[in-house]
């Protein structure tokens, strides 16, 4: 499902937000000010990406049930803010939020497309990999998503949304790329750790290496919006960045505090990168053989795979 109608260039903004835990109304008001700041720029961004759990904070434990919203309500709240400050200006907005649907709760991200006439929810991605180890406890409170889907962004073309740990499993960006994603957008909340790095926390370095690897392997843009601020002693590293399809870091946040990171993407860089490093095309050719390998767990069925 490859879109040919996307733009040649894309102005994007990664909002490294620092929400106040539990104060959704204040966080919405802060976001309104950010939208107003963006709308007043000489060249306003065409795409605004916010982090995971952008308006609530990440570590909510049981309070996730009070903070969660339906995708429709969250989308309406975001689009209303945008319309208030930007009028009918078209734009696309991505944000992570805790979602509720039919009594189940998810760590989700929404992609909205606003034009003069309407607001459309282009996609809601539910995080598949819920970290539940060490400092993390997501699966105690949340349900897993179960699909990686791509969709057509008017700005970026065929695109995928993945959340935080989703991209630590190389399979998910791979599936997105195989389905045609030209850009992978990653809202995230990453508590920093590791003080024996070189000039920055080790976890920040590891994240950046991971994101560059995804971009290079699949020849796609990777846009990473990281949450900022401390949450009960756990400092979120921000580290928002835009990475080109050849792995070049186009721009990155210098600190871990709240900021807006801007970039202009030349979308035809994707074709150049894929021509020069055709790993994705190589994978397409070999994948049927890999999937037919009888030693892989799924060839013995799901329950067997789960037992291993």
């Amino acid at each position, binding site marked *: 499902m490859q879109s040919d109608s996307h733009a040649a*260039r894309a102005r994007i903004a990664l909002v490294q937000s620092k929400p106040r835990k539990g104060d959704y109304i204040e966080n919405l008001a802060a976001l309104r000010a950010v939208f107003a*700041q963006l709308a007043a720029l000489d060249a306003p961004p065409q795409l605004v990406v916010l982090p995971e759990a952008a308006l609530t904070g990440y570590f909510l434990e049981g309070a996730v049930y009070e903070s969660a919203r339906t995708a429709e309500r969250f989308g309406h709240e975001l689009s209303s803010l945008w319309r208030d400050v930007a009028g009918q200006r078209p734009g696309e907005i991505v944000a992570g939020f805790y979602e509720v649907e039919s009594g189940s709760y998810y760590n989700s991200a929404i992609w909205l497309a606003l034009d003069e006439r309407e607001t459309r929810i282009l996609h809601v991605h539910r995080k598949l990999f819920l970290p539940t180890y060490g400092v993390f406890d997501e699966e105690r409170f949340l349900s897993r998503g179960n699909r990686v889907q791509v969709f057509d962004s008017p700005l970026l073309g065929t695109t995928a949304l993945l959340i935080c740990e989703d991209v630590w499993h190389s399979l998910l960006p791979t599936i997105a790329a195989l389905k045609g994603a030209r850009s992978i957008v990653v809202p995230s909340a990453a508590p920093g750790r590791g003080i024996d790095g070189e000039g920055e926390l080790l976890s920040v370095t590891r994240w950046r290496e991971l994101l560059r690897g995804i971009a290079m392997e699949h020849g796609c843009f990777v846009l990473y919006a990281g949450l900022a601020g401390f949450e009960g002693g756990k400092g979120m590293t921000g580290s928002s960045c*835009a990475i080109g399809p050849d792995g070049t870091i186009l*721009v*990155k946040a210098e600190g871990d505090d709240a900021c807006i*990171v*801007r970039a202009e993407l030349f979308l035809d860089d994707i074709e150049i990168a894929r021509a*020069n490093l055709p790993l994705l095309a190589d994978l397409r050719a070999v994948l049927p053989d890999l999937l037919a390998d009888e030693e892989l767990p799924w060839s013995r069925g799901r329950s067997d795979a789960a037992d291993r």
Partner: protein
Amino acid sequence: MLPIVDPPPRDPYAAPKIDPEVATRWLVAFLRDECIERRGIKNAVIGLSGGVDSAVTAYLCARALGPQNVHLIRMPYRLSSAASLDDAQLVIDALGAVAHTIDISAAVDGYLQYEPDADPRRRGNVLARTRMLVLFDQSAKFAALPIGTGNKTERLLGYFTWHADDAPPINPLGDLFKTQVWELARYLGVPAPLIEKAPSADLEANQTDEGDLGIRYPRADAILSSMLLGYRDKQLTARGFDAAEVALVRRRLEGTHWKRHLPTTAMLSDTAINEFYLRPVDFS
């Protein structure tokens, strides 16, 4: 108001990057492998022009083979710039390599006396080919390998004499743009006058490379490095490159593919060399 982080200003003409320490280590290993390991030859001969390319090549060979095994050969013509000889002497003095000066005037004029109407381009080519004749003969004399000095920019722009500058069997700088060679030169400690002067083939009076080419090296390098990645002209101008310069570079690049290949051979059999009969250059 949140602070806004913008990307570094997009400079389409930013020079291609090089880590000179890594490049030096790699090129020294390349020279040792090609000369000693593959061919069993421990000596090198280099035509030392007084320019930065041959100077950098000399510095690399001195590191790889030892200066006592590097023969630096100056080959002035009677109309060559005296400054070129002086600049070459700076390299000889700095490296302590074996130096030779062989005047090619008699050899060149011996031929050109029969071609009094030859234009500057023809005369320049005669000079370049005579120098290569001398270099290969000197390599036989000293049991040495001739080392090429051409850089990537001049190779891509076709700014060299076919089967002359490009004749040596190995070339350490052929994948480095001119601006990268300059940076490598600074790292290696090449004398400043050689780095700072306007590059010149010194085949005619007051000749400069950039005058001949119609574009400055840093700008040509930036355009070429993007062009080689596959960017088309419209994509390059969209990224801020000057359309006229892009067209100039494209014309030179595409008009000189033939200079970067061996002669085209008519294929008549199903054992045609390099078509059907294929062996890597280092296979034996």
